[in-house]
């Protein structure tokens, strides 16, 4: 089994049943796992910020840093490997915040809000999610069967 790390502001797609994609330490960032069980294609995105309009130029080089650029890119890259939009199973984790971290601090909330907006516009349903709180999460996606699991410090691993 190959563990493929998806770092901050990055995404990976795969159709290799040996692969497990993983994003470590999702705080206010969001991990988005998508999977087409028929094509056996999956992808994982680890984005950090809601909207690329803050810096278009940097967004060109780092689209996966932003929800509005990374999400379409993740889906398109899966389609290229034969995935179909209507079969996609979508799971979301992250968007936490520090204690009392409301207002400008709460980037996690904005990260999640943009995702919801994009999904409702494009009629994408979320099959499972674990959002918010003051945890930090690690998200795994197994390409062999599309299983997603979530690890929260000292709480063990649960299926998402």
């Amino acid at each position, binding site marked *: 089994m190959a563990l493929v790390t998806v770092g901050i502001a990055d995404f990976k797609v795969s159709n290799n049943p040996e692969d497990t994609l993983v994003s470590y330490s*999702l*705080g*206010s960032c969001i991990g988005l796992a998508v999977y087409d069980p028929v094509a056996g294609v999956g992808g994982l995105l680890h984005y950090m910020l809601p909207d690329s309009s803050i810096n278009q130029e940097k967004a060109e080089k780092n689209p996966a840093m932003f929800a509005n650029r990374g999400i379409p890119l993740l889906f398109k890259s899966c389609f290229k490997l034969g995935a179909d939009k209507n079969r996609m199973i979508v799971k979301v984790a992250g968007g936490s915040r*520090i*204690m009392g971290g409301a207002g*400008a601090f709460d*980037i996690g909330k904005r990260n999640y809000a943009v995702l919801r907006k994009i999904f409702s516009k494009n009629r994408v349903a979320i099959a499972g999610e674990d959002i918010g709180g*003051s945890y930090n999460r690690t998200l795994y996606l197994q390409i062999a069967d599309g299983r997603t699991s979530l690890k929260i*410090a000292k709480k063990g691993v649960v299926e998402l």
Partner: protein
Amino acid sequence: MSLMEEIIAAVEAMPPFPQVVHRALKELSEPEYEVADLVEILKVDQAVTANILKLCNSAYFGLPRKVSSLKEAVVYLGATQLRQLLLSGAVNKIYDQPNEGYAVFADELWRHALATAVMGQVLRRHLKLKLDDNLVFTSALLHDVGKVVLSNFVADRYLEIEKLVEEEGCAFQEAEKRVLGFDHAEIGGRIAVKWDFPPEIVAAISFHHQPARAGKSYRLLTELVALANNLTVMVGYGTGVDGLACRGHGLLLEKLQVKERDLENLLLLFQMEMAKTCDIAGVGE
């Protein structure tokens, strides 16, 4: 021995800060340091020397020819880069040991320290704070050094600490204080005193979870380190078992009127800088 006495004994038992690095940093802080003196100090330590040459010859600098003498490397790197390299090398070793109490994944404390140092520098630069860059870098790099000592104590009493966090909404550091009598911030401050760091660094470390308690002349630096820590924890750089269970210190953001988009932009700049730093330091992002 009481628990608190045991913890103090563990602080006493911490090895000293590497003397060669200490002496070199002191020399570097002279407004007009002598390269020859610096080389004299550094060449005693082969590991340090090798590190300096390695960085100089790394792809990052892309020099047309190989630098092979320490003297050349010292001149080439200049004071700021050399200082950061020496500090990171020494601090990396301090954090780099199994940390049962805090770390979920290996390397976590070090990545968090490095990220906080980079974040501190980005904030200082872009918010135009009147602070010395070396002070920012050093205190941010060392802010959680107390975790090295507290690790075993936290591991032993973890369930009690977790209970306070989960059931009473304590920050992790507040729960440490209640269960152990000390928290990692004040222990870090004691270590910094033992290591002879200046008072502003001691204050920034000691109060990075309660910046309002720092003395007035150290307040800005402490607030900056507190904010930088908040932001790296938030983004997920090396957060351990404590997760995001730390209080937000947004005072500085309010004072400087940093709005949502400004903050997002700062995080963007941080991330670009951090990617570069990880490259140089050979750390996974």
